[in-house]
């Protein structure tokens, strides 16, 4: 009784100093973030959607004229833009395939009893923590035809990695594979460690071969998480800008985002480049959707 009386009379009691209500706190915590993201993500998108229907050039003060779908029509009829998309597709396929093969392969090796496994895994993660621009820069040194360490190590003489039109894109892809295989490895390791050990034991009792075990047990169980790695890497590879931009200026290695950058910030075709940005955006959303559908299918199995 005494304590109860004390509490109700105490000015420091809970009722007297409840402070903000839960509702106020919730709104104060959430609304700024939502507003911030709308202002800096959604608003710019709508803004550039508007510009994509005009002939606006940010380099002049001339007012923007409405041109309807002319930008989109011009872009979709431009064979050069399509070649940029084709280059990008080639790049995505080469680099993502490379990353999956290398990353998953290393994960399979690391899934055995390897001494210093933790240290080795951490060291292998280092490339993906670096800046793509800076990585591009030091690979330029490694690829140098006259004094690069790569040509020396492989005995290639004066092989032109970055200025050979047919090789440049693969050179960029090799660097990308070096940088991002560790990401695939990291996710694969997580997937592999989640495969129940008793399945392997059962397979061993049944005298199942290595191939059978791999294709019937390991791969299906790792597939969902591997698929996630592929989705992430495909989206990122499609967006690649820094690495290719710094490594080479070969037209055969001009990815769509480099084309977009040049169109917007070197040729100052703001309206036209906004339209290209939208075409790219629709493609990213489309690709992501296809993948997510496939992912759900893999998960159901």
């Amino acid at each position, binding site marked *: 009784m005494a304590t109860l009386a004390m509490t109700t009379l105490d000015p420091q009691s809970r009722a007297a100093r409840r402070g903000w209500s839960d509702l106020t706190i919730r709104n104060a915590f959430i609304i700024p*973030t939502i507003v911030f*993201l709308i202002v800096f993500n959604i608003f710019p*998108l709508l803004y550039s959607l508007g510009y994509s229907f005009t002939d606006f050039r940010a380099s002049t003060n001339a007012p923007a004229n409405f041109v309807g779908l002319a930008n989109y029509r011009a872009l979709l009829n431009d064979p050069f833009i399509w070649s940029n998309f084709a280059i990008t597709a080639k790049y995505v396929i080469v680099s993502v395939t490379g990353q999956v093969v290398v990353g998953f392969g290393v994960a399979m090796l690391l899934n055995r009893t390897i001494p210093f496994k933790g240290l080795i895994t951490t060291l292998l993660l280092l490339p993906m923590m670096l800046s793509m621009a800076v990585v591009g820069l*030091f690979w330029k040194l490694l690829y140098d035809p*006259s004094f690069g360490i790569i040509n020396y190590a492989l005995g290639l003489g004066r092989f032109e990695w970055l200025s050979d039109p047919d090789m440049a894109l693969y050179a960029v892809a090799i660097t990308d594979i070096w940088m991002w295989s560790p990401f695939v490895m990291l996710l694969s390791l997580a997937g592999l460690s989640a495969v129940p050990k008793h399945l392997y034991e059962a397979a061993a009792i049944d005298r199942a071969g290595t191939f059978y075990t791999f294709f019937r047990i390991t791969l299906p169980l790792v597939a969902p998480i591997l698929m996630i790695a592929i989705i992430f890497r495909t989206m990122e590879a499609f967006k690649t800008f*820094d690495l290719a931009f710094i490594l080479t200026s070969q037209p055969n290695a001009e990815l769509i*985002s480099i084309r977009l950058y040049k169109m917007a910030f070197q040729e100052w075709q703001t309206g036209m480049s906004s339209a290209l940005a939208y075409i790219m955006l629709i493609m990213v959303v489309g690709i*992501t959707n296809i993948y997510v559908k496939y992912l759900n299918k893999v998960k159901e199995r």
Partner: protein
Amino acid sequence: MAAVKTSSEVALNRMAVVAVLVITIIFLAPIYWITATAFKPRNLATTIPPTVVFEPEISPFVKLFLRRSQLREQPTAEEYAEAPWWERLVFDGGEKIVRDGQGNVQLSGYPSRFMNSLIVAISSTVLAVGMGTLTAYGFSRFKVAGEQDWLFFILSTRMLPPVVVAIPMFLMYRWFGLNDTHLGLIILYTAFNLSFSVWLMKGFIDEIPKEYEEAALVDGYTRMEAFFKIVLPEAATGIAATAVFCFLIAWNEYAFALIMTRRDAQTAPPFIPSQVGSGLPDWTVIAAGTFLFLIPVAIFTFLLRNHLLRGMSFGAIRK
């Protein structure tokens, strides 16, 4: 499987160990090579066959920080003797240090770009993690109508290719006079990292039992006190991990920095490559700049190694 070890299995395992070692060496070789180049005298940086054994020098770092020009005439013996050690290093490299009218040493662009990188990365990290933590708490503890949709909206802001957003952002920034300012980049990187920070922090806060706060409320704490005194300390490791991720992303960003900055607020990622230029670049100096830029990343990678998986696969693994 491990019960019976046949000799072929032992051999297989030994091969795997060797393969892992070889792969690790191949993966680390480029980073080692840039580090080695940063400590070489200029004439050994571009030799064939490559110089592997050399006496490490710090002259690339001295040159990195000071503005230099080509030596037109050799310094006299007296000048050379009077010059401090770092100036002699530059003389030896065939260059001299640029001084202003009062004889003050002029710094190169690198220190200020490095500072810009620090200012922008740290500020945007503090903002993104601060706002992200509050928002994550809001979503974790209170009822929000359409919570899943809001969370998906927050995540979706990260799916856009940066170059796509860059065009309207550039126009908006020009309108507000935010181009080439620290504030402009800080806002951009905060927007960039916020979604990531909300999702990561929500995972961490969800794992703190609600009972902790309820007990605190019963003890007479207000909600805010409970949040600051109970939840935040419990979430400290999560906050640290999220902060490091946000820092790395802001620290490494290139495309926006290239488009939105010219001189005053330019960060190191667009600056270092611009120093290659045409002609004969001094690769030792560029390597030194790169090496310094990589140090924070390397340190954080080691501090963060146990949180990496979670951060990298955020949202995807959780479901």
